[in-house]
C-alpha cells in the first residue's frame, strides 16, 4: 500500500523572515498572528500531503495562500524550514545536490505560470533542453523533442523562437519541455492562468487528452475552482499557508470541513460537481425511461433526465445501482438541499 503513495509530505513548514529558523523552536505550532508578531511570514504551515500514483492532485487557494511555495517545497526548489518529504520512498530533504540533480533530470517535470522558456533557444531546442543538460547527443535529443512537440500539437513550429509564439503556444512548449524526459511526477504551477479564458479552456481539454494518454502523477496548482473541478481527482484548499481540507471535488462542495471552504465553494455551480451516484435513490420503479452512468455530473445528464418521461436507471459497470428522477436533478440545479 505504501507503494501507492509517490510523494509523502509530512508537517512541512516554510517560514520567511529573519527569525525563520528559531521561531519553530520557540513555539510549538505558531499561528499566523504569532508568526507575524515575530516579523516572519508563514508561507506554508504544517502541510500534510500524500500524492498517490496516477492521480491529479489540485492545490487551490487565493493569491498568496502559499500554493507555489508548497509545490516548490515538494520539488525542493525552496528549502522547507521543517518537516519531511519522501519521494518514491526516498528522503528528499536529505538528498545531496548531485542526487537532487539526478532526481530532477529523470523523475520530475515542472510547468511554470509565465512559461519560463529560454528566449535564446528555438521551440525544438527549448524542448530538447533537459536532454541537452543530461548530455544526450544532438541527434537523439532532437528526435525525441520532435516527438513531444508533435504530441502537444506544435509541428511545423520547431524553429520558431518563443517570442514568435502566442501565449497558448508558449505554454505548449513549456508542457512539452517538462514531458520530454517522461517524468514520474509532474508539477504544474498555474499553467493556464496567464491565458485568455477561451484558450484556457482549449488548453485544459488538451491537458486532459495528454493525461488520458500518459497517465502521469500530477500536482496541479490553480486559483480557479472551475478549473480544479474539471481536472481534479482530489483537491487541497489552502488558506494563509495551511491546508484547510483535502477531498474529492464533490465531497468538498457537499461536506465543507471549515467555514472558509464553504465560503470558497458557495458560488460553484453544484451541477458541475455533483454526480449521479450521490443523488440517486434506491431502485423502486419497474420501468425506466433510459440510463445514465453513475459517475456522470448532473450538468451532463440534466437535459436527458428532464426530457425523459419517467425515472432513469443509474448504471455502474453495466449493473443497475439506483434510479434518478426529475425532482432530484431540479433540486441540484436550483441549489435546494
Amino acid at each position, binding site marked *: 500500500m505504501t507503494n501507492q503513495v509517490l510523494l509523502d509530505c509530512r508537517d512541512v513548514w516554510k517560514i520567511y523572515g529573519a527569525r525563520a529558523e528559531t521561531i519553530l523552536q520557540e513555539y510549538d505550532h505558531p499561528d499566523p498572528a504569532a508568526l507575524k508578531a515575530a516579523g516572519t511570514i508563514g508561507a506554508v504551515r504544517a502541510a500534510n500531503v500524500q500524492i498517490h500514483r496516477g492521480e491529479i492532485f489540485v492545490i487551490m487557494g487565493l493569491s498568496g495562500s502559499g500554493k507555489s511555495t508548497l509545490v516548490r517545497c515538494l520539488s525542493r*526548489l525552496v528549502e522547507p524550514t521543517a518537516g519531511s518529504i519522501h519521494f518514491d520512498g526516498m528522503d528528499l530533504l536529505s538528498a545531496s545536490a548531485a542526487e537532487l*540533480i539526478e532526481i530532477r533530470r529523470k523523475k520530475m517535470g515542472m510547468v511554470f*505560470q509565465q512559461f519560463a522558456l*529560454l528566449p535564446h533557444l528555438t521551440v525544438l531546442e527549448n524542448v530538447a533542453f533537459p536532454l*541537452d*543538460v543530461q548530455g544526450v547527443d544532438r541527434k537523439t535529443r532532437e528526435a525525441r523533442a520532435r516527438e513531444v512537440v508533435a504530441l502537444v500539437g506544435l509541428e511545423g513550429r520547431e524553429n520558431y523562437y518563443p517570442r514568435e509564439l502566442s501565449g497558448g503556444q508558449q505554454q505548449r512548449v513549456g508542457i512539452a519541455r517538462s514531458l520530454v524526459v517522461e517524468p514520474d511526477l509532474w508539477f504544474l504551477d498555474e499553467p493556464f492562468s496567464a491565458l485568455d479564458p477561451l484558450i484556457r479552456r482549449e488548453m485544459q481539454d488538451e491537458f486532459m487528452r495528454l493525461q488520458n494518454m500518459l497517465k502521469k502523477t500530477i500536482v496541479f496548482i490553480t486559483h480557479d475552482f472551475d478549473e480544479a473541478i474539471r481536472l481534479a481527482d482530489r483537491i487541497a484548499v489552502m488558506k494563509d499557508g495551511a491546508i484547510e481540507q483535502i477531498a474529492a471535488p464533490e465531497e468538498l462542495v457537499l461536506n465543507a470541513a471549515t467555514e472558509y471552504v464553504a465560503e470558497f465553494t458557495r458560488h460553484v455551480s453544484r451541477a458541475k460537481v455533483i454526480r449521479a451516484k450521490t443523488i440517486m435513490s434506491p431502485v423502486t420503479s419497474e420501468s425506466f425511461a433510459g440510463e445514465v452512468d453513475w459517475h456522470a455530473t448532473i450538468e451532463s445528464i440534466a437535459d436527458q433526465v428532464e426530457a425523459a418521461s419517467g425515472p432513469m436507471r443509474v448504471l455502474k459497470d453495466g449493473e443497475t445501482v439506483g434510479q434518478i428522477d426529475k425532482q432530484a436533478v431540479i433540486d441540484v440545479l436550483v441549489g435546494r438541499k
Partner: protein
Amino acid sequence: MRRWITWSTGFWVALFAVTWALSSYSFQLYKAFDARWIVRFPKSYELPTESWISALLDWLVDKAHFVVFTFRDLTRAIAAMIELPYQFLRNLLIEGFQSGIGAEAVQIAPSLSWVAVIAVAVLIAHFAKDWRLGALTGICFLYLAVFGQWASAMVTMASVLIAVPIGAVGGLLLGIAAYRSPLIEKCLRPILDLMQTVPVFAYLVPVLILFGFGPVAALVATVIYAMPPMVRVTIVALKAVPEEIKEAGRMVGCTRRQMMWKVLVPSASPALMVGVNQVIMLTLNMVIIASMIGAGGLGFDVLASLRRLDIGGGIEAGLAIVVMAIALDRVSQAFASRGVHEHRNGTFLKRHPWTSTSFAIIAGTLLVGQFMPAVQTYPQDLTITTGPFWTAAIEWINVNFFDAFEAIKLVVLQGLLLPVKKFFTGIPWAWGIIATGLFAWKLAGWRMGLMAMLFMAFISASGLWGKTMVTIYLCGVSVFLASVIGIPLGIWAAERPRAGRVILGLMDTLQTLPSFVYLIPVVMLFRVGDFSAMIAVVLYALAPAVRYAAFGLREVPAHLIEAGRMAGCTPRQILFRIKLPLATPHLLLGLNQTIMLALSMLVITALVGTRDLGQEVYIALTKANAGQGIVAGLCVAFIAIIADRVVHAAADGQRRRLGL
C-alpha cells in the same frame, strides 16, 4: 507640514547667510585676529599622504616580493600577455608581418588591405542588423581612408580590439563571481563606486610607473577605466533573469556551471550586450587620454595637434575618432537588440555565407594587392585633407566674430563665473567642513553628514582646499547651466514627440563623442580659461539632464494626467502642477548624472588652464608623481561621492513623499 517647510527653509537660508558672510569677510577676519589659519590650513598639520603613496609605489616596484616572483615580474607578465595579441593585431591591420629586425626585415605577409577591412566591417554591420547599418559603417570607414586617417585609425582600432574583449570578458567574470558570492559583491561594490568617480588621470600615473610609457600601459589604463560598468551590468542582468527561468533551469537538473552558461548568461545576453556597448564607448573615450601614456593612433594625433594649436589637424583627427565611435556604437547596439538569427542547414558555405564572403574578399584583395598597390593601401594622392579648411574656417569666425565672442565671454565671466568663484574660494576651510557636513546631514542623514565632514577634512589636510573650491565652483556653475538648458529641452522633447526624436537623437550622438573632442572647438573659439572649460563641461554634461527630464515626464502615469484634465487643468497647469512634481525624482537622478559627468570632464579641462583639482592631477602626470596624482584624484572622488549620496537621498526622499 507648514511648520516643517518653514523650519527647513529657515535652515537653508541661515546656512547660506553664514557661509556667505564668512566667505565675504574671511580676509578681514584673518587680518583682525591675525590668524592666518582662518584662510589657510596650517602647513605643519598637513598630512604627508602624497609621500606615503609614492613610497608605497616605489616599494612595490623595487622590493615587493611574492614568494617566487617579484611584483616587477607580475607586471612584466601582464605586459607580455597584452603585448602579444596587440602586436599581432597591429601587424594584421597596418604594419604587415615581418621576420628579422631593422634593415634585414623581410616582409612575410602584408597587412589586411583597406578594402578588406572596410568590407569586413560592412559585413559585420549587415550581420548585426541590415544593409543600412552596413552602408553607414562603410561610409564611416571610408571616411578614415579618404581623409588620410587610415594608419592612425587602425592603430587605435588595434587597441580597441584588445581592450574591449579584455574589459568585457573580465567584467563578465567579475560580475559572475559577485553574483555567485555575496561576499565578493560586498567587496566589489565600494571599489566600483570609487572607480566610477576617481578621474582617469589619477591612475594614469601609477599605471605609468608600473608598466612604463607605451601602448601596454595605455591598454591597462583603458581596461581599468572601461571594465567597471560591465561588472555592474553583469550583476544587474543576472539578477534580473526571471525567477521562473532560474527555477526551470534547476528543475531540469542543471549543474551550477550549466545553470550559469546555458541558462543565466544566454537569457541575460541582451542586457549584457548593453554592457559591452558601454565598454566600447568608454574605450573610445579613453583613446585620447591614453595617448598621454603612450598609446599612438588617433588619440596621439589629437593631443599633438592640441599642443601645437594646430586647429585643422586636431579637428580632423577628432572627427575620425567621432566617426569610429559612431560606427562601433551603432553596430554594438545593433548586436544588443538583435534577435536570434534563423538557422541555416547545409554545407559550411551555405551555413555561413557572410563568413565565407569575408574570407573570399580578404584572400582576393591580398592577391590583387600584390599587383595593384592601390588595393593594398589607399593611394596617398587621393586623400583629401580638410585641415586647412578647418583652420581657415575657425580663423574666419575669429576674425569676424571675435568681438561678439569676447563680449559674451566677458558678460558671463563678470556676471556669473567670477562672483561664484569668489564666493566659493572665500569660504574658510574650517567653516567649509562644517557647512558641508550640515548640508549632507540635512539631506542624507547624520551618517552621511559625518562622512562628508571627514572627506572635507581630508581634503583640507592634504592642502588642496583652494583647488577643491575652484573645482566645486566650476562644476556647480556648469551643472547649473546644463540643467537650465537641459531640463527645458527635456520637457520639450517629452511634450512634443517629433521634436523629441530629434533632440534625443542628438543627445545620443553627443554622448558617443569622446569627452576630449568637446575641447577642440571650444578652445579654438574662446581660447584657454575658465570660460572655455565651462562651455566644454556644459556640452558634455547636457545629455543626462535632457534624457532624465524627458524620461521622467513620460513616466508620469497616464491616469493622473487624465485626472488633471478632467479637473479642468490647462496644459500648462498639467505640466507644472502634475507632471513636473511627479518627475522630480527623475530630474534629481539626471542632476546626479550631470554632476558626475561634469566632474569627470573637469579633469580634462585642466588642459585648457583651469586651476582646480584637475590641474593638480595633470601636473602630477607630467611629473610622474603618483602620490600627488592619487591624492588629488581621491579629492575629486570624495566630492563625487558626497554629491552622489546626497542627491540620491534627496531623490529617495522625494519619491517617498510622492508615494511612488
